[in-house]
């Protein structure tokens, strides 16, 4: 056992050394930008109408990548919801003290406004659908911690979140098909004739702001339902007796 530990440690040290050697040549030297990024930086704003070039890449140049990523989230959310699907819960946890609850109620609107502003201004300032959606998901996490999962379930139905999550994915595909119908390629933006607008104004960049909002809703709902799927099980474990009923509320297989 000790011998194995020493061996693994030696291997890891050797790996770290080789990685340093190999990547030092890539990361350390002062370099200029080459390849496709050069084109994106020079013409990205003019070609997509989006001032934030990261958003331009995510939703225009590499929109198909983002669609694949949306599919990955969908798979993760579906899998987690399936695994925890039939958990029968008795909600015992009624939340933290009244001070924390009041403070939470005070902070909550600001979190929501912050999330929406990151999402809506994603094509102008740092941020975008993914970041805004993640901030949005913290609302669910905070509600579950401060008020308990029962409150969260009562006010934000898990089914609604799953509907938003799946609907966001469908809307994304719909936006791509709109480009196809308008005469361009799948997920083509300005080349399919969507209005460009003035670079730097709120309505600009074709459907990039729209995709930001769609992805924001989808990621927010997805991460929220991921967290909720897990925490409702945790709640059940706390309130139920020692003999846990198994994941699906059935007797564990013998």
């Amino acid at each position: 056992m000790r011998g194995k530990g020493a061996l693994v440690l030696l291997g890891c040290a050797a790996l770290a050394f080789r990685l340093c050697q190999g990547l030092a040549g890539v990361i350390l030297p002062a370099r200029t930008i080459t390849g496709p990024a050069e084109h994106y930086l020079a013409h990205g704003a003019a070609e997509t109408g989006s001032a934030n070039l990261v958003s331009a890449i995510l939703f225009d140049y590499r929109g198909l990548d983002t669609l694949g990523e949306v599919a990955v989230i969908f798979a993760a959310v579906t899998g987690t919801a399936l695994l925890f699907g039939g958990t029968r819960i008795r909600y015992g946890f009624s939340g933290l003290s009244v001070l924390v609850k009041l403070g939470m109620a005070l902070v909550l609107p600001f979190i929501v406004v912050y999330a929406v502003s990151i999402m809506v201004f994603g094509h102008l300032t740092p941020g975008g659908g993914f970041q805004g959606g993640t901030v949005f998901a913290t609302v669910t996490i905070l509600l579950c911690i401060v008020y308990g999962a029962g409150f969260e379930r009562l006010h934000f139905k898990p089914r609604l979140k799953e509907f938003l999550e799946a609907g966001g994915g469908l809307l994304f595909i719909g936006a791509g098909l709109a480009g196809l119908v308008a005469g361009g390629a799948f997920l083509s933006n300005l080349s399919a004739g969507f209005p460009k607008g003035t670079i730097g104004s709120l309505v600009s960049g074709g459907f990039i702001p729209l995709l930001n909002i769609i992805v924001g809703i989808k990621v927010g709902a997805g991460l929220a339902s991921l967290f909720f799927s897990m925490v409702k099980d945790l709640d059940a474990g706390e309130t139920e007796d020692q003999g846990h009923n198994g994941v699906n509320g059935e007797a564990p297989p013998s």
Partner: protein
Amino acid sequence: MMPAALGTGILLLVIGIWGILMGRNLFKTIICLSLMEGGVLVLLIASGFVPGGVPPIEPILDGPAVNPIPQAFAVTAIVIGAGNTALGLAFLAAWHHAGGSLDPDGETGGAEL
């Protein structure tokens, strides 16, 4: 700054690999995977850095902009990583509730998923 980013990324990556190889707990294995992901993301972002660079947001006024492509990759990778971790933990929780052991070599207790 760049040597620090390089060192941090590789350190996180190697700690993750070490934890996966040596850990006796499947929960820690999943956390180590997410640690490795963090290391890779640091290296990815660092690879797009340009000395004296500014954010790649129009109008780009003072200095060259950094490479926006690794940043776009990192954004998607972070969310995918969260999904992966959550799904892995969900499988682990289901396995544990069914009577399986968290030790990779331990008794399964006849548990089936």
